[in-house]
């Protein structure tokens, strides 16, 4: 069961995040849902890298089974790009709030 429980939790997190992304009407809530889904994706990569009784992928920690280093490198990329795109989309939300005085997608679509 190594890593399987964690990846099940990760898939549940992605589902929860997608549900929030689809069903909530507030733009900031949608971004929070996207954030939770990205957290699920990162947890999934970490769960895939897991091996039973393994040490981290550092050479001087000696022989024996080690964790898979490639998903760890992908996690690094995912965190950085996620931070950057989340910051940029929050800036767009600030812009939208200043211009249209609303964060509700239904109102934003109706007024034009």
């Amino acid at each position, binding site marked *: 069961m*190594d890593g399987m429980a964690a990846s099940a939790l990760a*898939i549940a997190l992605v589902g929860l995040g*997608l549900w929030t992304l689809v*069903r909530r009407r507030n733009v900031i809530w949608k971004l929070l849902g996207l954030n939770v889904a990205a957290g699920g994706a990162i947890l999934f990569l970490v769960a*895939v890298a897991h091996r039973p009784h*393994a040490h981290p992928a550092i050479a001087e920690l000696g022989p024996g089974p080690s964790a898979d280093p490639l998903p760890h490198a992908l996690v690094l990329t995912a965190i*950085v790009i996620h931070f950057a795109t989340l910051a*940029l989309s929050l800036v*767009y939300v*600030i812009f939208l709030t200043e211009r249209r005085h609303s964060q509700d997608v239904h109102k934003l679509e109706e007024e034009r």
Partner: protein
Amino acid sequence: MKWAAGIAILGLVVLMAMGTWSLFPRPDVPSWEEETTAWGAENAVAAIVLGARLWDTLFEVLVYAMAMVGVRLALRPLRQAEPQAPLPETPLLRRAADVLLGPIVVFSIYLAASGHLGPGGGFPAGALLGSGLLLLALAKGAERLGGELHEPALELWEYGAIALLLAVGGGVVLLGWRGEHVLLGADFLIAVVVAIGAWVVLHNFASSRGEI
């Protein structure tokens, strides 16, 4: 409409679970020690990110920097609209910043310098340095610190670090260099880019207080 979205997301989750099921049990990791040492690293993640996938990492940093430039440019018209009164500074935060800033800077330099030997690297070091700058901004007031740090000069620093990183990285990839000094240089340049980018985002978010 609600149940349609629910069924769609449930189906997606079931598909993901079925795809994941075939991944387990995970196969053994092939031996990576020799290859990692050949790149001049002890940490296999550093050997992948800064060695085998250096070209990917360069463009990842480029994407990061483009997002930061987007944040700065999109918030600029909003910030010039009305000058706001600076936030009052609190003595507790000021003292804490005095005590904590030195260890934060030293630890981030340590992380950048030892990223190829153990846990660490350029990205965490840059994030740490950026959040240290945010602590300083909260203690001294974002407007005052922005004036003291000379933001146009900081902008030049960021563009310079990106250009240097792309040029050096491209040269390294084309010439096929590998070794400890390449990893160290890439780690420090990435730390500078990420720290300035994190500072730009956090400072802009801290200093733009609008009203709905």
